[in-house]
């Protein structure tokens, strides 16, 4: 698998993109969703996160995204331990991540073009400055003719591609994708996977949460397997 590296190839001084140490997570007074989860995502690495439905994949992604805090244990993102992190630092970390949500989370009142351009827009860049990048990416994911359409009028597959384009547009250091190929046909799924791999080659760490074994079998990448709240790593 040229161009992809696994966590075991972590280079000397460079901090891992993500580091979990004995992380436990429960919602309210409920049972622990994750127990003693420890792993690292190395810079420029490519891995899948898999496990049955309800195993805690989305919770783990939310922990990395810093939208929830662990009940116990330590989470570090890009070398920064996130407990008590300031609001500005949190924003800085999030700008280095791209995320594809399972439910897409496109903003229904913005066009496909505006949705994809959002990460660049919130960085304060002018529309003329990023227009070419957005248009090219939209055309590449096959939404060139749909860029003026509002998300409610897009098909499931189109929404998914728009969500992926939004996650990729700012060339993140870490890409998190929750079932990114769940709503597309196998050909497009492979094409999107290839896009993630290209991004990985350019230096982005990629974590794809999926339970599509067909997709995972396409490339030889590390697998983080969640089951009963515990994590097993298969290399």
């Amino acid at each position: 698998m040229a161009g992809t590296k696994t966590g075991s190839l972590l280079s000397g001084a460079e901090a891992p993109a993500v580091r979990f140490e004995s992380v436990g997570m429960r919602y309210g007074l409920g049972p622990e969703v994750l127990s003693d989860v420890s792993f690292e995502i190395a810079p420029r690495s490519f891995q899948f996160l898999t496990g049955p439905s309800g195993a805690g994949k989305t919770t783990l992604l939310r922990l990395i995204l810093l939208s929830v805090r662990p009940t116990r244990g330590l989470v570090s993102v890009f070398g920064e331990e996130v407990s008590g992190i300031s609001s500005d630092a949190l924003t800085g970390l999030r700008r280095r991540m791209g995320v594809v949500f399972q439910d897409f989370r496109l903003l229904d009142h913005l066009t496909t073009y505006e949705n994809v351009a959002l990460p660049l827009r919130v960085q304060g860049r002018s529309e003329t400055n990023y227009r070419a990048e957005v248009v090219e990416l939209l055309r590449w994911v096959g939404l060139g003719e749909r860029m003026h359409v509002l998300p409610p009028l897009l098909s499931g597959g189109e929404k998914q591609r728009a969500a992926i384009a939004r996650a990729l547009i700012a060339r993140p250091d870490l890409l998190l994708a929750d079932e990114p190929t769940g709503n597309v046909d196998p050909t497009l799924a492979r094409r999107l996977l290839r896009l993630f791999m290209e991004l990985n080659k350019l230096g982005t760490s990629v974590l794809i949460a999926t339970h599509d074994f067909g997709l995972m079998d396409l490339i030889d990448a590390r697998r983080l397997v969640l089951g009963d709240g515990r994590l097993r790593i298969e290399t």
Partner: protein
Amino acid sequence: MAETRAPSRPAAAPPPEAAEPPLPPTLRRNAPLVPTDSAASRALAAVIAILTFLAALCAGAAEIVASSAGQWQGAVAQEVTVQVRPGPGRNIDADVSRAEGIAKAAPGIAEARVFTKAESERLLEPWLGSGLDLSDLPVPRLITLKLASDKAPDLKALRTSLTEALPGVASLDDHALWLQRLSTMANTFVGIGIGIVALVLAATGLAVIFATRGAMAGNKEVVEVLHFVGANDDYIARAFQSRFFRLGLRGGAIGAGAALLAFALAGVLARISRSGPAGDEIEALFGTFQISWRGYAIIVLIGVIASVVTGVVSRITVRRFLD
């Protein structure tokens, strides 16, 4: 992997200039990040418009009272009155002539007008009725003195010379009591006006707080997505502020515009009815019932302040909500 195909260049690299189909001309590229066209937005704009209209009416009315009071004060302050009372064994006409002479000789007096006996008696008609023989009554005589605008009169010296020359007979009334009462009344009206405007603007602020909190709750997903794509709290607060400022601007413009229209219309109606007795009363009280350019400026200012209050309050509310 053989069937997967890499993009010809990195995904986010700039494209070559040639061979790119043009963008659709109707492509919307920079819509507000917070949805604007909702029933709640229209309701808030209507509330701001109504509150601005009421505040502007109040401010305009206070301005009319203040400027009318100013005109009355100016008119009253331009005159003083010498009163000559008939005394036993005195010739009142001689006393009046003497008082007129003293007044005319005083510096700063532009003109003196002596009210004749008949004119003085006519002044009593509103109280005593007409057709009465008042020759037996000791009706005082009045001399109105117009003050020169270029030279400050020394009323204290004039009063002293009058009482010295005609002790117990002549007195000088400089209308200070009336002026003070007018000034107090006008200031009270202006104070009430300012108070009501402040209250209405405070009510606008409170309405905006409720609306902003509602909008934040209604746009929770938008806020969450903006956070995930790297927007900081300040950016999100600015997005909401911009949305509410626009709503405030719309509401403020409609409210202030309606108030301007109302005053213009009232002015026209007052002019039309000026010929009748009601018009005379209105004109006596409020002049031409028209607000000056200052009044129009105040109304426009209130519209602007309502918009600014809306923007600033929404920003503070969003920041508190996010913290």
